[in-house]
């Protein structure tokens, strides 16, 4: 039992580190790249980092709330990915470019 507890604690830390790394990579990708699709992928990576974090913390508790929550987010993310990609395709058609600078005039 003791060994299990130690493994679980280590698992939690590993998850947190992995999540932070994924999130950081996503963030860097989002800020550094100007291709809309890559930026979109980066946001997905950030999201996955958060999900990994959720799984790690779930291991501390006896319930499965964290894991099921992560599953829900996964589904929503899939839907959102469809919408986001659709939007990007539409934007591409308007400007014939995937450069985010092309939309600067929006001043958003």
């Amino acid at each position, binding site marked *: 039992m003791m060994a299990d507890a130690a493994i679980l604690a280590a698992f939690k830390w590993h998850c947190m580190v992995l999540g932070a790394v994924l999130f950081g990579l996503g963030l860097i990708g989002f800020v550094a790249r100007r291709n809309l699709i890559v930026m979109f992928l980066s946001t997905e990576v950030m999201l996955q980092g958060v999900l990994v974090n959720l799984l790690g913390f779930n291991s501390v508790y006896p319930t499965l709330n964290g894991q099921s929550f992560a599953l829900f987010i996964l589904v929503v993310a899939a839907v959102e990915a469809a919408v986001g990609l659709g939007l990007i395709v539409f934007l591409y058609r308007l400007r014939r470019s995937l450069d*985010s600078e092309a939309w600067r005039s929006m*001043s958003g």
Partner: protein
Amino acid sequence: MIPLLPLLGTLLVGVFLRVLRGRAHWPVILGVAGAFVVSMVMWLTGDGDIGPREVYRWIPTGVSALPNDEAWFSIGFLIDPLTIVMLLTVTCVSTLVVIYSVGYMREHDGQPERGYERFFAFMGLFVFSMCSLVLAGNFLLLYLGWEAVGLCSYLLIGFYYQRPAAAAAAKKAFLVNRIGDFGFGLGVLLIYFTFGSLDYSTVFEATRLALEGNAAELANRHIANPDQLIYQLGYTHRLTWIALLLFCGAIGKSAQLPLYVWLPDAMEGPSPVSALIHAATMVTAGVYMVARCGIIFAPSDTAMTVVAWIGGLTAIFSATIALAQYDLKRILAYSTVSQLGYMFLALGVAAPAAAIFHLHTHAFFKGLLFLAAGSVMHAMAGTIDIRKLGGLSKHMPITCMTFWIGGLALAGFPLLSGFWSKDEIVAAALHHNTALGVIGLVTAVMTAFYTFRAIFMTFHGQPRLPEGAHPHEQPRVMTWPLCVLALGAVLAGYWNIAGHFAHYVERVMTVPHWAPEEHGHDYAVMGLSAVLAIAGIAAAWLAYNKKPAIAEGVARALPTAYRILNNKWYVDEIYDACLIRPLRGIGRLCWRIDDWGIDGIIWIVTAIPRGTAWAMQQSVQRGALQGYALTGALAIAILLAWVLAKM
């Protein structure tokens, strides 16, 4: 029930606008005619004294001089002979007018005009407003109906809103009415402050008792301060003030001097609307209101004198204007103003039954005249200048005949309705004050003269029609109401033979201070006014049919008088110079202050955030997505660092 039927018609038209289209007249006709039938039933069954009915408790007044459950402004109706007479007149004439409109509101190829549905919806609303005004059982509802007819008149006068003249006329009618209504509103407020209630029954009863000095009975009826009320009514000018303020409203609504100016301009609306406004609804409201509030007016000599003289002066003043007009409908409009003057004259000399009787007969023949004039206008494709008409009797026999009947009735030709009613007024005026009586007689001559001047120039003599005009008789849906109204114009006067009508309405209008009227016919006055009417007609015939040279000769001999009359005493110009221009100046000044002063301050205040925002846009918000993301990430990093440092 009665007001609801036309309202229902209106609502149906309003809701099923697109579905009904050219059939939009059906719901309104049925609604108005239904109201007429119900009024007939009420008139024929029972003695007409149904009394007050409360339908719905509307607004709690809070202040309760009465036991708690009575402290309400309620939607209540009062039905008595006076109401029933008004309802009969209003709904009967309205029904015929609405039927006539079915023919009038069409192009020559029989297609409905633009806005056909809208027209009928407004007509229904108009009749509804007038019915609720007449039926109202308290001053608040009266005021509501009062304003509603004002609104409807605005909508209908401005029916051809694409025409600037129509839009201006509608605006004028509304604004002039507002001046009067303001006084009326103040009067209603004063009534409330004095009596603590707006119900007719309470107010009238309290007035009567207070004037008798019957404090005990007043207290019995839960009046808060009987002694104070007796003092106010008996020893101060409170009643005079109330009466005069209410009369202000009547002046506006019933187009009396000095607020009559809107009525002649109201000709810009379609002719059926003119008929409705002049005959049945709207302008009669003032007369009705003064008759209804007789007990408030009668004790005050000042108020009665004002009413009588304003009526008399209006009668003669507008008759002089009508002498020199060339627009057929405008002549009729000034004659309406003049006839309304007669009614107020009658009220002022304490002959309310005569006033209501004249209102009743006038509704028939004036409605008839306007519809006939509309028929001429329709046939002539809008030409209404009597200098360009003439000899129409050959082309439009029915219109001509009915117009003749209406004209004879208006002129007071013996045995037609106008003769009976006008006669009583003149007789009552002569009894009361010789000057007023003489005014009445002179006006009668002028009325006969200008009416027949119009008839001879329109229907007889040499045709002076413009090129390409093809006058023709109108379809049956238009001539038929004309005939019915003509019948009414002939017969309506016989209701009062031996004073039947007067007895019928007077039961509710008898007030202690009004001396009982004598109901015998004054044969001397009758004969005199008959002779005068015939003289006026004969003079018109001589001057405008037999020898047109005479009319031109007179106009040339008195150029100044002619010019003044033709320009309506320059009243519009005087108002423009004395009132409208200064007011417009003040308005412009206020606008400038608002535009430069107040808006300037606001501009300065808003400059601060605008400047900040501009700086932000130049520095941070340049529109680059990555920039925003970086800012966000940095912010999170700073937050994180702060949280960690705290730990």
